[in-house]
C-alpha cells in the first residue's frame, strides 16, 4: 500500500514537469504566432538539408518589396522583382543597411553583420528572413 502510494506520487511528480514543459512550449508557439501574424504550415515540403534558393514564401517577398520601395521612395510602378539588386534600384550602402534594419524591425529578427554583408538582391534578403524566422519559431 505504502509502496503503491509512493510510486503514484512519483508518477505524478514525473508528469508535472512534462505538463509544464508542454504548456511552456505551447505558450511560446502562441507568442510567436502573434508576433508574425501569420500561420506557418507545420510540415513544409522542403527536403532534408537542401537549401532551395527559391524557397521564400511569396508573402514574405511581397513584404520585403514593399519595405524596399518605401525606403528608396520609388514610385509604385517600379518593377521590384526577386532578382533585382539594391544597387540597381538606386540604393547606396547606407540604404542597404537601413533596409536590413527595417526588415529586422518588421519581422522581429536579428541579422548578424556577416549575413548582412552578403545581401545583394531582394531574394537574398527574403531567404535570410525566412531562415531566421524559422530558427526563431
Amino acid at each position, binding site marked *: 500500500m505504502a509502496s503503491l502510494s509512493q510510486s503514484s506520487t512519483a508518477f505524478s511528480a514525473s508528469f508535472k514537469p512534462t505538463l509544464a514543459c508542454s504548456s511552456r512550449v505551447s505558450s511560446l508557439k502562441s507568442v510567436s504566432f502573434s508576433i508574425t501574424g501569420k500561420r506557418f504550415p507545420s510540415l513544409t515540403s522542403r527536403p532534408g538539408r537542401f537549401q532551395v534558393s527559391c524557397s521564400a514564401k511569396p508573402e514574405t517577398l511581397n513584404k520585403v518589396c514593399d519595405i524596399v520601395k518605401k525606403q528608396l521612395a520609388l514610385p509604385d510602378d517600379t518593377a521590384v522583382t526577386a532578382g533585382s539588386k539594391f544597387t540597381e534600384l538606386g540604393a547606396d*550602402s*547606407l*540604404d542597404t*543597411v*537601413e533596409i536590413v*534594419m*527595417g526588415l*529586422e*524591425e518588421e519581422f522581429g529578427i536579428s541579422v548578424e553583420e556577416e549575413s*548582412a554583408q552578403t545581401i545583394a538582391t531582394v531574394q537574398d534578403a527574403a531567404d535570410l528572413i525566412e531562415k531566421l524566422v524559422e530558427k526563431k519559431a
Partner: protein
Amino acid sequence: MSFTLRSVKVPPNSVSLDEARHRVFDFFRAACRSIPTVMDIYNLNDVVAPSHLRSVVAAEIRKHASVTNPKVIDMLLFKAMEELNNITEHAKQRHHIIGQYVVGREGLMQDTGAKDQGASNFLKDFYKTNYF
C-alpha cells in the same frame, strides 16, 4: 547615476577608409537597434514612427557622406556615439529629442511659403543641404 554606460575608451584610429566605413555601419546598426528603447524612454510612440527616426539617423550620416579622411570619420563617429549614449541613458529630455530629431529638420531655414514660391528647385535643394 547611471552614467557608467558612457564608453570613455577611444578605440585606435581606423587604418583605412574601409575600416571607417565598417565602423559607420556598425554605429548605424547600434543606433537603429536602440531606437525602440529610446521611443520607450521618451514616450515617442504617438509622435513618431521608428522608420522616421531611422531615416533621420541616416540623413545625419549622409550629411557627411563625402568625407574621405578616416581620422575625420573617427572624430564624427566619436561625437555620434557620445550623442547616442546621451540619448539612451536619458541624459536628454523629451523636448530635446522632438526638437532635434523629429520636427524642424530644415534647421533655421523655415519655408515661409509666400516668399519662396518663386524660388527654383535648385535653390530649394541648395538651402536644404550641400549634397544634391
